[in-house]
Structure formats: C-alpha cells, structure tokens
C-alpha cells in the first residue's frame, strides 16, 4: 500500500509541473474586444477616440423628423400630428464619460502625453460638450442636478450620500450653462485642424443660442405660466421671469456679435447675382459640409461605403431602389405658401408667397373631401397655368433648392405628382381608380401625370391600395438633404447643427426683442440672410419678419419647434392672443390637375386636405392644445434620485 501512495504522490508532482495554476491563465491574450484604461489615455489617438464617443453622444438630433410635427410637414401616411419635438437630455452616463475625460487630462499631461496647449484645447472641448448636454437638459427640465465630476468613488454600498445631487434653480442652471460655454470659448482656439471639432466660435455660437433661449423664456414665461403653488415653481426650479430677459438678450447679442465680427465664418454664397445662382448655392450648401457657413455639424462622409445618414427614404417613389420605402416625409402646402415670390427674375423684390389657385382669390378656402366636393361647375373659378411647374417658378430660391414639387426635375427625371383630370367635356375626375389617358390634339394626358406606375410619385392608387409603399398624399417632399444627382442609397450629406445664418438671426431677434444692440446692424443681418436667397430688397427689422425668416431659412432643420418652445408660443386657445406665432391651420396639400376643357391643356391646382390611409380624408383628431405644463418635462426617476418633480 505504501508503494501506491508513493506513485500517486509522484504523479501529482508531475501534474504540478505540467500546469502551474494562475500563470496558465495570466499568460492568455485576454479580451481583445476591450482596451484597458491605461492604454486608452496613453496616446493622443486614444484621447481622440474617447472624444469621438463624446461627440457622438451629443443630443444633436440630426435628421430627426421633428419638423413633421409642426405646422409645416407631415408623415406621409398618418394623421397630422402637432406637438413639440423639443426633447430633454437626461443621460448622466454621457456626463460621466465627459467628466472622466476631463479628469484624465491632468494625468495625461503629467505623463507627458500631451502638452499644456493641447490640454487646453481638450479641456475646452470637454467643457463645451458638457455645456451642450446640460443646455439640452435645462431647456426641457428647468433647473437640473449639475454633476460636474465623476462620482465613481462615492459609492460606498451604504447610504451613498455622495451620489445624490440636488437640482439647481432654473436661473442658476442657465447661468451655469452660459458660463461653461464662455469658459470653453476662452480655452478653445480660433480654429481647429479638424473641421468637425468645436472651436472658440462654436462655443460662442452655442452660447448665443442658449442665451437667446434663456432670454425668450424669461420674457415669455408668463405666456404659459404654470401654477404658482407648485413646489417646483416655489423653489424656482421651473420658473423664469421677464426681469431676467434683458441680461440674457445682452449675452446673446455679445456672443453673436463676437462670432460675426471675429470668426472666419460667413454666409455661403452671399449676395448671388441671379436666382439660378442662388438656387445652386442653396443646393450645394447641403451636399457637402461648408466650413464657411457651418460652425458645428456632423459629417457622414465616413469613408465606409455603406453607412449613410438614412434620409434616402425621404425621396419620392420614382427615385427609389430595391425594397426601400420612400415618400416617408412630406411637406405641407402651408410651408410652400410661406416662401415668398420674386417679383421677377431680374429685379428680385419679394412678393407674398401664397400660391394663387383661384380667380376669386379666396385662398383660405379648401376641400375637406376633394374627391366628393370638387364639381365640374367649380372648374371655371380656377386659375389656369400653362405648366404644372408654373406656380413655383418664381418662388424663393430656397424653396426651389430644398423642396421637390410637382413637375420639377430631380436626378434627371421629371417628378410626376398629379391627382386628376378635367376632360374635354369639362368633367372633373379627382383620384380616379384607373389611370386612363385622355387625348388632346393627339397627345395623351394621364390623370396622374404619366402612364407607367414607376413614373409616378404620388396620389396614384390611393383609394384601392392604401398599403402600397412609396406613397405620400402630399405633393411636396424634402430635397434639402438628398443626393441631387443620382439614385444613391448611400446618401452622405452632412447635418448642420449650427449655421452662420442662425447667428445672424439670433442677433436680429435679440435686438428686436430687447431694443438693445445695434438695431441698424440687426436689420442688415436679417437682410443678409434674405439676400443670400436671391432677394435684392430689404425688409424692416420687425419681429414678424425675423420669425418668418426662421421658418423659411431653417425648414426641415427642426428649428421651428424650438422657436415656439422657447417663446412659449405653441397653439393654446385658452391663452389668446399670445399664440399668434404658433397658430395653425389644417395641413393642406395641392392637388395638381390637368385641364383639357379649353383649347389647350392647362393646369389647375386644388387646395385640399390630403387623403389618408387611416382616416380617409385627413383631419386633426384630438385636441390641439399645448398646455403650459408641457413646457417642463417630467423628471426621470425623481423618487429614486430624491429630487423634486416638475409640475407638482
């Protein structure tokens, strides 16, 4: 028996040599999908990678379709909607990442990875990114808990007192955000080597935007006052007052002026010599990022052949490839009406943009159910246009460059969007079930504008095939971000988060609202934006003119919802007359028709509610009221976070 144990002991010894426990595992490659903390900040490239994640986490809402929810545009197959698309930012994970990044800079400098000057730039960017995030928080939640350092060390498994941060008042929060933008601006260089990184004027531009927001909110808080007995109002967590406004307008003016005066930015294609040049400029601006116009934005030129910004599905049905669904973003007639006309291509003075459809000029009238209500007798009252494009030919260059309208040329093809026919006997047929040709002087005219289904973008087959893809029930779609030339499913056009024209309008609005700043300069700035669009005349500096310019210059850039939000100007019938700016009519479309009743084929245009898959002819459902309390979002997890809830 002893022998047995001897041999067993021997083999155990062998086994021991064979495998030396921990070392066997320590020598493994490890997890190759992770990079350890030390190597991550050991090089500048590593710091850049951290920065890339931080920029990517910004609540920029690029290409969000928020504008669809406003007056202007609509999802193609749904009932019109009306609500704010301004959202809050409540992502302390991103805040932690930014704080950790800022905290890593000191040690990176100590280790000699970056020098003092580089650290200054990185710190400036960190502060900018953090202020950007908190700006998006304050505007929606009011006073917020400001976490300005990472709390990793504060978790103790017990009371965790160090993890709880209380809300600052709304005014303190705004002041902190503005101060942080200013600190960032002081650290950042005049320009960055890489154009998609924030520089001094990005920070100042953002400061101007935030200051205008704080100022507008202060001035107009009382348009939508919330119950003063609420705890959050008592504690001034959701409270601003008119007396704050002046100082904020001044900050906006100063910051905007600094950018306009000192930055190398300018309007892209300022003072064009013709309408056509203006149209080209306005198209080109959105094809490739212009670092002249853009102070901040996001590029989709990734170097990867497949990633895209995802807007190609907005294109009309004729442009779609494979199994994509298009026409998913429509523009209403209401927006088309906003764009002014030139009096002529040469003198280029502005005229009211309402599209003239009727001889009696009653353009406030429209059809609820165009198919049933449009009668043969009514045809006589319609203005007859020679071409389907005639009503749009003298429209603002921005409309022609940014909107696809009936009969326009896009990617080398004519976009057909027609909804019916008046035949030789003067008989009207709107949305006919069959696309049967009628003849005039041996030329075939189709109710829907062309014979083959693949040559049609809208209206066809509405009543029988509601689920058919690629249908919109409006006759306008966005062109702004689409590839202008080829059917390319990998559209990579950029997103401008902050454009030079916004700085100009910010100055103009702050000046007209506060009476401060240089009023003459403000008028010039407002007209600079108009001139860039091809107009030659000047309009006076009025609030109405400034707001009109916000609508037309930034259509489809999700700005209008923000304007209404900060000005507390959403539609609110209980609160007359302050809802002026946010007042809405029904979202309408034009229904272009070919008219064969006269000697030659002409075109008439009907104003109508669009057909809808869900409710036959579209109309609003539900109430359109935007309550005062909706200006402050519910605080996420307020019980768990031990902070005050809003509207309570």
């Amino acid at each position, binding site marked *: 028996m002893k022998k*047995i144990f001897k*041999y067993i002991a021997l*083999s155990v010894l062998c086994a021991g040599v064979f495998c030396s426990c921990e070392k066997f*595992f320590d020598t*493994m490659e490890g997890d190759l999908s992770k990079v350890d903390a030390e190597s991550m900040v050991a090089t500048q490239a590593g710091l850049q990678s951290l920065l890339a994640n931080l*920029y990517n986490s910004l609540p920029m809402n690029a290409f969000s379709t928020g504008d669809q929810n406003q007056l202007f545009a609509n999802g193609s197959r749904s009932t019109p909607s009306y609500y704010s698309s301004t959202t809050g930012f409540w992502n*302390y994970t991103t805040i932690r990442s930014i704080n950790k990044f800022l905290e890593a800079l000191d040690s990176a400098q100590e280790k000699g990875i970056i020098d003092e000057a580089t650290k200054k730039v990185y710190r400036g960017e960190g502060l900018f990114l953090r202020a950007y995030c908190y700006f998006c928080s304050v505007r929606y939640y009011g006073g917020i808990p400001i976490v300005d350092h990472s709390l990793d060390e504060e978790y103790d498994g017990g009371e965790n007192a160090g993890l709880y941060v209380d809300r600052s008042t709304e005014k303190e929060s705004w002041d902190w955000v503005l101060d942080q933008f200013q600190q960032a601006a002081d650290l950042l260089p005049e320009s960055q080597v*890489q154009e998609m990184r924030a520089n001094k004027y990005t920070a100042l531009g953002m400061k101007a935007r935030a200051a205008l927001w704080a100022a507008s909110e202060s001035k107009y808080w009382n348009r939508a006052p919330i119950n003063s007995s609420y705890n959050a109002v008592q504690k001034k967590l959701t409270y601003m007052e008119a007396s704050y406004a002046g100082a904020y307008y001044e900050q906006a003016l100063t910051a905007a002026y600094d950018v306009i005066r000192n930055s190398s930015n300018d309007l892209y294609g300022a003072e064009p010599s013709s309408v056509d040049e203006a149209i080209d400029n306005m198209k080109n601006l959105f094809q490739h990022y212009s670092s002249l116009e853009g102070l901040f934005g996001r590029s989709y030129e*990734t170097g990867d052949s497949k990633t895209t910004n995802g807007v190609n599905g907005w294109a009309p049905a004729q442009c779609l490839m494979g199994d994509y669904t298009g026409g998913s973003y429509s523009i209403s007639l209401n927006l088309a009406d906003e764009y002014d006309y030139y009096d002529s291509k040469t003198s280029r003075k502005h005229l009211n943009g309402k599209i003239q459809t009727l001889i009696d000029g009653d353009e406030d009238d429209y059809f609820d159910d165009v198919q049933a209500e449009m009668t043969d007798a009514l045809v006589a009252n319609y203005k007859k246009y020679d071409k389907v494009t005639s009503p749009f030919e003298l429209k603002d260059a921005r409309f022609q460059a940014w909107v696809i309208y009936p009969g326009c040329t896009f990617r080398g093809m004519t976009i057909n969007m027609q909804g019916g026919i008046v035949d030789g006997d003067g008989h009207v047929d709107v949305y006919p079930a069959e696309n049967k040709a009628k003849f005039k002087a041996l030329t075939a005219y189709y109710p829907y504008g062309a014979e083959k289904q693949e040559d049609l973008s809208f209206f066809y087959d509405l009543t029988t095939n509601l689920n058919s893809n690629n249908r919109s029930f409006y006759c306008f779609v966005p062109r702004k971000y689409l590839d202008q030339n080829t059917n390319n499913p990998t559209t990579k056009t950029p997103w401008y988060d902050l454009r030079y024209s916004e700085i100009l309008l910010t100055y103009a609005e702050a000046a007209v609202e506060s009476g401060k700043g240089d009023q003459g300069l403000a008028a010039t700035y407002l007209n600079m934006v108009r001139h860039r669009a091809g107009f030659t005349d000047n309009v006076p500096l009025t609030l109405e003119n400034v707001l009109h310019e916000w609508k037309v210059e930034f259509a489809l850039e999700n700005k209008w919802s923000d304007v209404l939000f900060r000005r507390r100007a959403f539609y609110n019938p209980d609160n007359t007359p302050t809802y002026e700016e946010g007042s809405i009519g029904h979202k309408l479309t034009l229904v272009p028709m070919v008219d064969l009743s006269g000697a030659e084929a002409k075109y008439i245009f009907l104003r109508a509610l669009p057909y809808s898959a869900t409710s036959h002819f579209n109309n609003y459902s539900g109430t359109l009221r935007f309550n005062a309390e909706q200006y402050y979002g519910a605080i996420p*997890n307020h019980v768990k976070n031990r902070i005050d809830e809003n509207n309570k």
Partner: protein
Amino acid sequence: MRATSLVLGILLSATALFAQNTIKVTGTVTDAQKEPIVGAAVMQKGTSTGTATDIDGNFELTVPEGAVLEFSSIGFETQTLKAAAKMNVTLVEDSELLDETVVVGYGVQKRESLTSSISQIRSEDIAMTKSPDAVTALQGKVPGLMITQNTGKPGDFANSISIRGYGTPLVVVDGVVRSSTKVTRGMFFSIMKDYGMDVSETDISYANDLSVLNEINPDDIESISVLKDASATIYGLGAENGVILITTKKGQVKKPTVNLSAMLSLTQPVTVRNVESWTSFMKWENAMSDVSKMGHRFSDEVIAAYENNDPDYIYTDWYNTVFKKATLNQQYNVSLTGGTETVDYYIGGNFTNDNSVYKSKSYGYDRYSFNANIGVRLTKNLQARYTTTFRQSTNRTPGSYDVDWNLLYYVYSSNPMVGVTTKENPTHYTVVDEEFMNPAALLDTETAGYYKMDNKSFNNNLEITYNAPFLKGLRFSANGAFDFERNKSTMLVKRYPLYDYATDQVAGWFREETQYGENWSDRRRLYGRIQALYDNHFGKHNVTAMLGAELTDFLMSSVGADRYYGTDKDNWLYTHDTINSGLRSRSENKGTRSQDRSAGYIGRVNYNYAGKYLVEVMGRYDGSYWYKRGKRWAFFPSYSLGWRISEEKFFKSILPFVNNLKFRWSDGFTGSNQGSPYDYVTGYTESGSWVFTDGKTTTGYANNTVESSILTWAKVRMMDFGVDWELWQGKFGGTFDWYKRTVIGTAATRTVDIPDFYAVSLPKENLNSYENQGLELTLYHRNNIGAFNYRIQGNVSFTRSRNTYIESSATQKYTSSMNYWQSYNLNRWNGYFGGSRYEWAGGQFTSITDASTSQVLYDYSASGAGNRAIVPGMYKLIDRNGNGYIDSNDVFYTWGTGSSPLQFGLMLSGSWKGLDFSLMFNGAALRYKSYMMAGYSSFGYLNYLPSEYTDSYRVANYGDDPWDPETQWVAGYWPALARVTSSGASHNATYTSAQPYNYINAAFLRLKSLEVGYRFAPNFMKKIGIKSARVFFNGGNLFTICNPLLKYIDPESQDASSSAGGYYQLNRSYNFGFNLTF
C-alpha cells in the same frame, strides 16, 4: 459468490501447483453462429496462466489437471468450465447489461459497480435510426436525454439537446472535450446586422457549440454514455449540464473484416399542408372580405372563368413549382477492422448526401469523413493508441437569407394568376408579389446566388499507456490531442430583374446591389492529460483509483471580406464570385481572435466490498480564466454510494429470481461560469464614431461599467437517488431515478436604488438561484420464444425547474395579482406558471346578435369599442376578474409552448432466424402549440387557404352579408374567417393567438423509425466470399399520433410557433440499404 469462487480458485491452483499433473487442452471458441471468435481469452482461473484464440478461434493451453478455465471475450458472456483435453466452447453474446462495461468520465466501469446515473447506448441501438447526424439517432433512446428536432433542413441539425432539462451538455469524444464553449459570430449574424437587425453579439459568442455531435459519423460510434448526475462533475466547470461521452470504434483482435453498407433514402416533408383549390379559395377570399367589410378581390367573371377552365386565365401551382414530392439522399460506409495481439486497427470512411425537397440545388448537405483508430503494443507494458478523424462537409442554402426563413410564406404570397416566367420568355422570372419575391427565382442559384458553408476538421488523439510492472494494477497514461478546424463560408446575393408577366417588361429589381462575401475561421485545440490509474483487489476489497491533470488551449480566429458590385441603376457589372471581382471602393472586411483555456486536477477513488457495498469519492480542483486572480480556482468534491442488496445472502434466499437490485445515491458539486470572460477588467469598448474630417472616421471608445471583481462561478449541486433491478437473468429489468440540481449564485445585478447620477451599472454578483427536479424510469424486457428473440425498452423522463431566489427590488410593486403571477415566478415551477391564454367558458357566439348582446366586452379599444366587430364562431371566454371585459388580466395558466417537460421513448426489436426488425417511438407531452390562426403565413392575407380552416363559422349561402343579423350561419370549429390588410395582422380581438382554439395540446407519439432487415444464410454467402450480408428497409417519422389539427403543423418541430407552416419541416424518410461483411 464471485469472491468465493475466486478464493476457491486460488486454493485450487495452489493445490494444482503441488499436484503437478498437467493436461494439454485444445479447442475452438465460437459464437452462436459458429463463427470463430478471434482473440478470446482462455485463462486458468485464479492464475495468470492463459492464452488467446487465434484467427480461426483455436487455442492450446497446458494446465494442471482439474483446473477451471475461464473463456472470455469482449461482448460475450464469460464461461467457466472444467479443463478437458478437447474443448469446443460456444460463447453467448453478452446482451446482458450487468456485465457490460460502461464508459465513464476518464475510464470505464462495470455496470454492476456503478453508483451514478449513467446511461449507455451501443452502436446497434444508435444505428436503429437512420440519420446523417448522431443527435437524431439518440432521440428517445436515453432516459433523461431530451432531444427535440426543430427542423428538417439538410445540414442544419438545429436540434435542442438537454440532459434532464439542464441546458446544453458538454460533449466528450474519445476522452477530449470537443464541444467548444465559444463560438465565432457567424457570417449569418453579420448579414443580419447588415440588414439592420438587432443581434446581440455577446449572446452569439458564448453559445455552446455542439456541432461535433452533428458532424461525427454515427457509423463510427462504438458507444455513447450520458452522465446525468454528480458523475459529470469530474469534468469540472462547464459540466453542470451533464456530459455526453462518445467513444469511437476501435480495432479488435480478429481477421481483417471489411464492412460495407449503402443506403438510399427517399425523404419528404412530414407535414404537407392541405389547401383549398383555387376556385374554392377565390370564393372563400371574397367571403372573408365581406367579413372584413372590404371589397371583393375576385369578380364573379374571374371566378367563372377559372371554373370553366378559360384558357386565357392561367393558374400557377406555386407549391408544386417549388416542391418535389420526395427527394433522394444517399449514405455509404466502408470500414476495415481487425488486429493481432500487437496491432489492431479500425478504419472507417463515410459519404453522406442529404438533399432538400425543393426543385432546386440551392439546399443540400454533403459530408465525407474518415476515421482511423490504431492501437500498438510497443512493449509488453507499453501501449499506444492513435485516433484520427478527418471530416469535410458542405452545406448549401440560398444566398438570400430571407428565403431560408420565409420560403413557404413566399410560395403562398405569390399570385397564382401569374406564371413563373413571362408569357414570352421562359428565362424571365415574373413579379409575383409586392416584395419582388418570386420563389422560383429565389431558389435558382444562377439567378439569385448561394450561401455555402464548407467545413474541414482534422482531429488527432494519441494515448500512451504504461502498465507499471512493479506494482500490480498500476497504470500511467498520457493523452494528447490536436484538433484543427477550418470553416469557410461564401455568400453571393445577386441583384436581378423581375418582369411583368404579360408585357415582359422589367417591372422591378430584386436587391439593391449584388454582394459577394467570404468568411474564414480557424479553430485549434491543444489538449494534454496525464493520469495514474490503479485497479486491484485485496480479498473482497476492490479498489480503483485515478489521479490526473489536464489542460486545454483553444484558439479561434476569423477573417471575412465582402464586396459589392455597384448601385448605379443601370450601370453595374457582376463578373465572378471572387472578392477581387467586386468594387474596390465598395468593400468591407472583418476579423477577430479569441482564446479559451481550461485546466484541472482530477482524482477519484472507488471502493467496493464484495460487490455489495459500493463507494465512490471524487474531486476536481478546477480553474476558470473568466474571473479575477484569487477567484479562479476551487475544489469540487463529489461522492456516491451503492448497495447491491441482491448480493446479500438473506436476499438471495428470499428472492432468488432477482439477480440484481441496487440502490444508489450520488451527490456532488461543480461550478457554472457566470457573466462573460474578463468581466473583472474595466476596459473600454467600441462605442459610436465621429467623423472629425470628411472621409476619416474615428472609432469612439467608452467605458460605462465598473469591474465585476467579486463575481465567480455559480455553485452547482447535483443529487440523484436511483434504483436498478433485474429479474430472471435479464428477462425483466429497469431503472428509476429521482434527481435534483441546485444552482446557487447565477449572475445578477443588485437591485438597490442608486441615483442616475452615478451613471454606472452596478457590478454583477452571484445572486440568483434556481433548481431542477425530475424523475426517470426505464423498463426493459427481453426474451426468446423459440428462435424468436425480442427486446422491449421504454423510458419516461419528467423534469422541471424553478427559481429559488430572484434578486428584485424591495420596492417592486405589482399592480394586480395577475401582474404578480405573470412577472414574478419565485418558487413556481417553470413551464406551468405562464399566464398565457384565455380560458374557454364553453360555447361560441352563434350570431352577430349573440356577440353584440354579450355582457362581456371582447374588444374595448378606441376603434373597435364593444363587440360590434366580433364575428360569429368566436369562443366565449371567462372574464376572470369580472370587470366586464376581456384583457390580459383574464389569461389563465397552462403548459407553455417551450420544450416538453415530459418525454418518452419506446424501442422494440427482435429477430427470427435471418429476419430482424426494430421499432422506435418517441413522444412528448405537457406542452401546447400555438396555432397562430392570425399568424404570419396563416389565412386571410396570402393566396391560399389551409383546408382545416374551412371548418369555420360561415354564412350559409355564398354572398350573404355577414353583418346582417338575419344572416344564417353554419357552425364550425374556427370563428368566421376575415381578410386582413397585412401579413400577420388580426381582424380584431377575435384572432389573437391566446384564444382557446389556437392553443392546441401538442402531446404526440411518433414512430421515429421502423426497420426490417434480413440476413442471408451464411453458408450460401460464404461460398461467394461474403461472411454476412444483410438488407434492410428503414422508415423514419412514418406516423404520428397527435391532435388532428397538428397534422399540418408539426407537434415536435418549432414550425408554427411563429410562422404557421413557414419553417423548414421535418422529414419522413424511406431508407433502403444493405450491409456486407467480407
């Protein structure tokens, strides 16, 4: 008894030594068929004197007079006879289970001395089911091994395998763990990601890969053991779900024997949907439209035209355009086996070809495999054994991934009024639906492309055993394995035009761009083990001991590339399917590498006293690299006890016919890895990206975690109480087991309230726990009536599990008792807790009036308020909470739709002279299947109506308005059918899947296989040089007993749970083959 004779033998031989009177014994050892047995041992009992029979079964031995001789050979019952000068011995085949040796972890044991729950199945039983993979061949044959066949797709082998419901087991082939714990993310998943589908990469990476079970040639398998209880713990971490041990065939000491077998199989789907004829369908469709208040799809003229066979109206039977009635598969095996005392060998080759029932080459599976096992006795005490396997398999599926998932859907969504190709051009495929999915084009590899997976694996195993000459019963062995596997997948997805049937004009394009991709992955396993084994007895004390150490190093790397051929609408060119042929500017590539290691020390001691009292103690010191230093290594002990009461004297006198009755108890610990490897490292991982300058993307990195430094494996305890019995020398026998497994400390995050500002999720800890419990019963009977031998074996397994701790917030609020029931299942048995279906109150609404006057509201949504949209035939439901309407709070518990907790199998086999037969049944119960009446490819949207739906409430006269209260109805099983506007949509509350008529008991009993064979008379065959020849017919999945509604939707497969007949169905097969032995 045995011990007594042993002692007797020693005494006798001692006597013999003194007597010195010797005799020379000569003779032959043969089997029952009078075939000589080569290499049978002839030993003088109690001594080491002995010899082995030669190639003709002859032997010669000189022994003392009066000696007792023991004749033994593997697979035969040992015979003990008194020595005589001339001895012709016939050994009886060892069908006796008791003496059988059983492969256990790191060794073999005699069945009689087993103290654990281990089931073993031999090659003959495996071969009873004919299938290209070993998993299907195991189904229903091993108690506690639960297998569900999910699909009949060639080469897919998507079977669910679990031992006792525990989860995916470890697979050990010839002593080496060959199921990888880590799997590369397949190309398939990257495609899904490309198409924007949500795929969690971590889930895929750590799935257990059992592909070895699918790829191994069932014909090369000698035996399969299933370790179901604490006996599995000897394999350490990862063995918590039990272990499947596969032993491949070895050489035998006998004349070289060639075995040749060939088999041809005809396969067809088990479930073929019976659908209404086109003219009947059109009328049904219109009637359904009436119910939905939609316009008719077919005018009376069109219907009349088809009824009158108007030649202007064509009809395409898409199902038969795509499907064959049956397909032909082949399987060939050849093996050479033989050996002498010094060298033995087994060499096997196999070719398997498995085709699909589609009229297309786009699906298919081919495999070539080669297996060799060579043993060499180098010196008297030194032996070496080399095992090698080379396998090559090719698996083809269509290039377009969506075909694979939805082919039946596309078959039925295709418009039958349109031809497969255009009127004028038979090479122009037509547009048949809105999605441009022409099924015939999709399956045409020339047109649509292909997906091909090519797998080559090369496994090598070398074992060297040294019998220590200085100590009886001591052996050392060293075992090394080197496995290499290369997987190459290629995919071509082509862009192609589809034409308008009538005009022959291009009407649309399938796919936006042609794409070609390749993915190569390598896997390499190095394995080493050293062992010391001791086996001896001292009087009645029998001792075996084993001590060893092992380690594995597994490397996986992959690289893949894709190129596209251009998106320009008219201007693009496809040339060849090579990466270089695609556009350089439209290319992508990817590559990964990962490593996996394991190591452990193993020790085991078995002791038994006189074969009566059995004890086994074992332990394993095991490590896992997943955790932080200091949390990696642990010792896992196990023990088991057995008492063979039948060996007790008193028992033998009372119940002499009981030749075995054993009670067993086993109890042991092991660990289950938790979380994912390296959770303890707080690393940065890729997170988003930013373009700082046009054209240059910087990948972002983020770290939003804190290290899981206290996480370690979960503690698993496995317990088993079992009884084995056998009566009348094996005529009747059985086994019963009760088992329980507890798993304590599965990974979870503590649910304490932490404010958002901390912004890091808390680390994972070992918090939750659960347990499994179950019962197993096996009964067998064997006998012979004259020349008719037969055997019956049946087994039943029942298993269930429940959570015994769930980390949840103390402040968690449940809104109702139903909410509590549905969302919190602590201490409740899984599979039966789910509140998942409405309960039938009995009766159906017989009319519109009946529904609209009901006191209970079924549809209370804003759009369909009240019961105005409820159709006649809708089942009346119980409003459990009595609030006046039916909603999710009224659902009631029932057995689930997951895997069956109760599974059973029955094997019958017998032989009479040359004739043999076998039958294998498999079944499961306590499971429901959702019929998905409103399912994805059910009725109401597509161009077909399954005939079973015609048994529905329907208007008495075609064309009657279903919404007129005066309309007369004809009753049926289903509610009135309604047309819907999109696939999978339901008309209203009536057709949701949780309705009682949709919930169908999926209990079934299926004849998995039936085999009839005939062996030709050996004498006649011998004249033409053939030792034996056998022909057979084998049928697979021949019939199934189940609820008649499941005739069309298989009760076993996953078919229908989501796609109602859209899945690749199980196959029925008719196999013809022969075996020849030379």
